[in-house]
């Protein structure tokens, strides 16, 4: 779908900021989330989790639990099949351990009982005999040939010799002659970096309500970023047909990538099947931290060469990501994203994915990119410091643009990086004075953005209103954006459109709400669905007027004769056409199904000012500005919201958030008290500057905006703190003990 070339168009409603359609439900407490649904005869499900980081399950005795009054079903891996498909098997094994528990918190049994209290009691009655195995949680340790092996036989053909079996895959990208490039450099800096695993930290714990009757028909209500993918996974694991399992996405209390897979849903369905009753499972916060997907932790080496003038001559990155106890493909994305912002003659990135005894990583906003770009942007900043160059000017000098051969292979089309950098350079924030102990940091960010499988059905109601059925859970206001695009295309007011998110039986397959895809892909499909409905409406008007269909055009919400030759008829509005639809051929609708491509990459630039307390190492964020290209901001409030929310998640990642493991391999901070997401008093306002450089792949020029904003804060904060204290920091989070340690070492 190409950008509409007539799109010097003046948008009428796209770009405005109307109230979101789900607003009243959400401010009155009526919106129904994962844990808010009940069913008659419902049982409470609860899950038994491993206290060990790594152990063989010698035996599980569930007899005492089964005998407890009120217990209706107990399940273990013995109640599940073994899927042939490796990916599906991994998903299932993560939901219910088979043979071994692979991390602290790994599920290995579950009960359904008449109350939550009885279920909890029953869990305590399950007797497990564990044979404790050596464990490994650090990525570098896990790569060593003598490391404890998390899973045997999972290395792909591309992993080189001399490494532990924990290394599951290797990748390499780049072009040009590195040696020649480094030879041209006046200064080469090599640094090693580490970043901790962080959690998406959505406030709503995973929750679901499952029923599966004796005839094999099932219903599942759950909070998810993708009800269709949940259906694929659950139907596959349960061995039932997709048509027999209807999955309804509840309102979702945050996901950020973490709700793109299943953890409890197959367990609830299995309990429901065994008990013959509906089963609800709601995770505790502790379970969310222990057993859902944080992001990867990383260990990275970066080497960059620069001329005295600031031109980068060669760049190299080696990235090692641990993604928990199951294979993942996250380092590929980091390796491709690492140098995306730069126009480089010689670049190489290498990546290794590694297994450890930690929960399986899940996607988290631009998965794999933030840590790689943090390391790269840190070294670029240090080069600028040492060569006494302006860091923004250096970024501009080296910025990728249309025609640049990207570090991951393709040549860039229209991208907004230069304009974004120029906007940052011109902004008063960049030239504002700083006081002692303060520092300013800058970082570029990048994400690929994706499209994907999308279906939209658009119905013209006889009263002139419009209903849109789409299949992607609304996380950040997408129902508003989709309604806006439909209203724009149809030429009717926004409040005449209502968009709903359908269950899996009501619409064709939709990919998960991920990859910053919804406003782009669902928007695109909505525009096309509206266009097909418009074609029908023009046809109806043509018949009423007795003229040729192609002599009718659609303008300002009305069918009109194309010109004086077509005849002199007063325009017919959408409502007028809809009112007589029964007489003119029946209901009017449009629909569109596509596997959308052309999402267009996204760049952002962040500026951060911090002040560091030199006596305690505490960092205070004083000022923060986000610059990002949105292509076209459909609902600017929610574009800003993505930019602000992503930035603050990145700030948390940079300063305090981390998974902390003890020597025993147990997670020590499975709660919001010691997993420190930023609170309101930690932050300044997050200022935003939206740029609109149309995406050539969308009729309105829309670009996804959701993921890029989490990428730059890591380096922006690290560069700011490093400049404030006069010592380079190479590890996240920059918790006060680390910062104070660096200050004291500096002397």
């Amino acid at each position, binding site marked *: 779908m190409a950008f509409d070339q007539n799109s010097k168009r003046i948008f009428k409603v796209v770009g405005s900021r109307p109230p979101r359609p789900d607003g009243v439900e959400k401010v009155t407490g009526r919106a129904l989330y994962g844990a808010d649904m009940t069913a008659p005869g419902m049982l409470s499900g609860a899950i038994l989790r491993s206290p060990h980081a790594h152990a063989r399950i010698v035996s599980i005795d569930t007899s005492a639990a089964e005998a407890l009054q009120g217990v209706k079903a107990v399940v273990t891996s013995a109640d599940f099949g073994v899927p042939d498909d490796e990916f599906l098997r991994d998903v299932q094994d993560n939901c219910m351990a088979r043979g071994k528990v692979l991390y602290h918190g790994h599920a290995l049994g579950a009960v359904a009982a008449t109350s939550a209290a009885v279920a909890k009691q029953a869990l305590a009655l399950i007797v497990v005999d564990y044979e404790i195995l050596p464990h490994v949680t650090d990525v570098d340790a896990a790569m060593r040939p003598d490391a404890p092996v998390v899973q045997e036989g999972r290395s792909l053909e591309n992993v080189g010799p001399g490494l532990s079996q924990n290394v599951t895959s290797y990748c390499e990208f780049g072009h040009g002659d590195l040696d020649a490039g480094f030879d041209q450099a006046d200064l080469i800096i090599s640094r090693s970096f580490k970043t901790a695993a962080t959690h998406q930290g959505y406030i709503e714990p995973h929750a679901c309500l499952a029923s599966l009757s004796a005839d094999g028909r099932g219903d599942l209500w759950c909070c998810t970023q993708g009800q269709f993918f949940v259906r694929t996974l659950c139907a596959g694991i349960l061995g039932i047909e997709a048509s027999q399992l209807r999955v309804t996405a509840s309102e979702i209390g945050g996901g950020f990538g973490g709700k793109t897979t299943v953890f409890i849903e197959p367990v609830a369905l299995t309990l429901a099947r065994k008990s013959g009753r509906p089963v609800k499972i709601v995770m505790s916060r502790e379970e969310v931290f222990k057993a859902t997907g944080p992001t990867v932790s990383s260990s990275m080496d970066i080497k960059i060469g620069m001329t005295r003038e600031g031109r980068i001559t060669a760049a190299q990155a080696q990235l090692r990501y641990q993604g928990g106890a199951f294979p993942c493909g996250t380092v590929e994305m980091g390796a*491709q994203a690492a140098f995306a912002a730069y126009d480089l003659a010689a670049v190489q990135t290498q990546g290794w994915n590694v297994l450890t005894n930690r929960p399986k990583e899940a996607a988290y906003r631009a998965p794999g990119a933030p840590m790689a770009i943090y390391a790269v942007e840190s070294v670029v900043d240090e080069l600028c410091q040492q060569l006494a160059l302006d860091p923004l000017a250096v970024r501009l000098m080296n910025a990728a643009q249309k025609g640049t051969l990207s570090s991951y292979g*393709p040549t860039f089309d229209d991208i907004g990086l230069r304009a974004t950098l120029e906007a940052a350079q011109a902004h008063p924030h960049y030239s504002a004075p700083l006081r002692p102990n303060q520092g300013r940091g800058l970082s570029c960010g990048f994400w690929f953005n994706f499209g994907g499988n999308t279906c939209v059905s658009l119905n013209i109601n006889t009263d002139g209103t419009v209903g849109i059925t789409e299949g992607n859970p609304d996380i950040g206001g997408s129902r508003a954006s989709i309604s806006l695009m439909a209203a724009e295309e149809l030429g009717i007011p926004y409040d005449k459109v209502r968009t709903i998110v359908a269950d899996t039986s009501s619409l064709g397959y939709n990919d998960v709400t991920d*990859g910053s895809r919804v406003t782009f892909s669902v928007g695109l499909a909505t525009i096309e669905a509206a266009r097909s409905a418009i074609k029908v409406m023009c046809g109806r008007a043509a018949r009423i007027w007795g003229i040729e269909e192609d002599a009718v055009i659609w303008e300002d919400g009305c069918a009109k004769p194309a010109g004086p030759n077509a005849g002199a008829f007063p325009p017919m509005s959408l409502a007028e056409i809809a009112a007589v639809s029964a007489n003119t051929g029946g209901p009017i609708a449009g629909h569109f199904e596509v596997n959308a491509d052309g999402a267009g990459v996204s760049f952002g630039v962040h500026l951060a000012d911090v002040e560091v307390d030199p006596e305690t190492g505490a960092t205070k964020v004083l000022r923060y500005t986000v610059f990002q290209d949105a292509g076209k901001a459909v609902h600017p409030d929610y574009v800003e919201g993505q930019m602000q929310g992503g930035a603050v998640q990145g700030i948390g990642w940079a300063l305090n958030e981390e998974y902390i493991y003890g020597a025993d391999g147990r997670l020590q901070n499975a709660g919001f008290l010691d997993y420190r997401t930023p609170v309101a008093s930690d932050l300044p306002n997050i200022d935003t500057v939206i740029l609109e450089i149309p995406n050539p792949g969308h009729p309105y020029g829309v670009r996804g905006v959701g993921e890029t904003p989490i990428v730059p804060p890591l380096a922006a904060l690290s560069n700011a703190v490093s400049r404030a204290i006069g010592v380079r920091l190479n590890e996240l989070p920059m918790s006060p003990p680390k910062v104070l340690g660096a200050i004291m070492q500096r002397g």
Partner: protein
Amino acid sequence: MVRVKIWGSLRPLADGQSEIELEARTFKEVLDQLGARYPALRPQIKRGVSMALNGRIYREAWFTKIPPESEVVLMPYMAGG
């Protein structure tokens, strides 16, 4: 004739080449011919590859037409958050 660029870690599986010339008019023909010529690439193709055509990433669309003189780059299949 299209020249298909492959990423670094695939090169050892394709006789060390970084660009491969193929007679292909669509993404599917690219995949089929790569797999036929270099069987070692088949596991990765099965796991998922995307194609960047003149800078635009097509994740799955087999029948994406490849005009002459196009830049064709293979990429690992990716997903976001």
